[in-house]
């Protein structure tokens, strides 16, 4: 495994302004030694895919608390496939009901973290995902 820092894009797709979780996770990953780019709120799936491409990230973390996750995350996954960026690991967090977690896993989202997840668990998951794909 290379020594280069893991690069993560934390992104807020859609119109949702709840950014507390996204910011906390971004900071925790940064404190764990990763390079973290945070997009800010109100990003379209296309903008997120573009940022991921430009920043050459290993992982994208999508945060959505507005209930629009199925549509928006699907658009992000499609955008990644269109650009042959399938190797980028996508993880997600927010208010996401159990049934939808299964749907998201089917479209290729690697992990979904609900409310109350310790940040250490997310750090660990990101490290494992990146190791696994190296």
């Amino acid at each position, binding site marked *: 495994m290379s020594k280069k820092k893991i690069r993560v894009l934390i992104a807020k797709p*859609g119109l949702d*302004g*709840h950014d*507390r979780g996204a910011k906390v996770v971004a900071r925790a990953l940064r404190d764990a030694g990763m390079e973290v780019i945070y997009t800010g709120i109100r990003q379209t799936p296309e903008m997120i895919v573009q940022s991921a491409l430009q920043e050459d990230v290993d992982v994208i973390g999508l945060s959505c608390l507005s209930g629009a996750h199925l549509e928006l995350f699907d658009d992000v996954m499609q955008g990644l496939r269109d650009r042959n960026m399938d190797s980028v690991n996508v993880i997600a967090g927010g208010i996401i*009901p159990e049934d939808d977690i299964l749907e998201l896993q089917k479209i290729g989202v690697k992990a979904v973290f609900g409310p*109350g997840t310790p*940040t*250490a668990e997310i750090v660990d998951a990101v490290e494992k995902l990146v190791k696994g794909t190296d």
Partner: protein
Amino acid sequence: MPPERKKKWQQDTYEPAIGKSPERQPDFTLTSGMEISPLYTPGDIKGIDLEESPGYPGEYPFGRGIQPTMYRGRLWTMRQYSGFASAEESNRRYRYLLDQGQTGLSIAFDLPTQIGYDSDNPLARGEVGKVGVPIDTLKDMEILFQNIPLDKVSTSMTINATAPVLLAMYIALARKQGVALSELNGTVQNDILKEYIARGTYIFPPAPSMRLTTDIFEYCRREMPRWNTISISGYHMREAGSTAVQEIAFTLANGIAYVKAALDRCLDIDEFAGRLSFFFDAHNNLLEEVAKFRAARILWAKIMKERFGARDDRSWMLRFHTQTTGCSLTAQQPYNNIVRVALQALAAILGGTQSLHTNSYDEAYATPSEEAVTTALRTQQVLAYESGVADSIDPLGGSWMVEKLTRDIMEAAERYIDKIDSLGGVLAAIEKGYQQREIQESSYRYQKEVEAEKRVVVGVNKFATPYEKLKSLNKINPEEEKKQMASLTKVKQQRDSATVKASLENLRRVAAGNENTISAFIDCVEALATVGEICDTLREVFGIQREYVII
């Protein structure tokens, strides 16, 4: 008990005791970081005149409550924030809640409506009807209020950037129902400043946004004397992670900015200040929260009287709505949330709230199911009718601890307000990212404390036994988005496009000038112009705002 007596107790009894067996934590602190004393005694409140410092109920500075009788006269308004899927579904929920004994309406709009996009805008994809009701045109608003006479209810609308559009629709609806505008009771949130700091549904830059805010003040002063023209909100800043002190300090600082904007418009302070209302969070620490509400009231009364020279006692009163804290709700062991909500609601009531929303236990999963929201409403009714806490005014007044915390929170909040003043006021501070950064720091610190188990979240970082996830959730059918788009297309086909165009052109002209915009908004919505068309017109005139600061 003179201070020497407490000192004697500390030396003779307390310190030997903790010497033998230490306390369960090295320190005890409020969310605001202030140390909690092991024991409060009269010595702690020496120098506070317990009769005059908080004042008497209904008297300046209203620390013990704004009404002379408080809940002995009339209980707080029970107002559950609600809206989802479609105008039909939401209307059904409102009528259900009213049948269950709810006493006011609180409308949740979906994000496209809040940010000025029609349901068929590509940017609205996936968001239609999710966190609230989709409203594209006056037609939707008519369905939303079917069989709800506007002269019989009070309606709170959580709407900010598009507040003038939704207010115009409410006015148009009242005209259709034959209700005089002077009879309308309710509130528009209309608080754009906290959107830049925390909530994120802004559209336009601050200057034109503040102009629209003030247009509502001015219009309602003339036409809708019983309407609350703004709900200056600390709730969302608290949910974003602020402390109790930051919540009231940043909220009151925003209040100061709105008062200044209205004074700059040459409105007389006593003509608009009585219609300003507030909105706070009721968080977990019961006594800190009670003290926070009392402190906020005293501070606002002083600000209005001393800083702005208001003379009418209504201008001095901080009237507020409360919602229990959403971020305390856990997905783990979800029924624990019912207990949390009850305690938070108790804080709001002991703090003298005018109106209350209690969260539902399933909200870490989805918007509330009917069963969950009924339990939330019943929680308020149990507190109101069974607990006895509503039977005397400010029952915690005079508690050494509550009075001391009230004073401490006031002083700490005043320091923040001074700091914001010294940065050049709220907008200058927002542009520098001051409030945003303060909130982020508090939120991250809190997260660290939870992870270090310095703060216990029952069922999450302690007592985390297996639990069953909730199954019967309020699920929004994805077909609703398509249905809404189809009904929008139909309205667009049936309306008179020349009238729409003329009304939007008129709005463009008025917005580009200095006159009050509200009548122009009413013309637009009556012509069945859509929320998106109206906001696009304004985007062309005002420009758009980007996010200020990111981490």
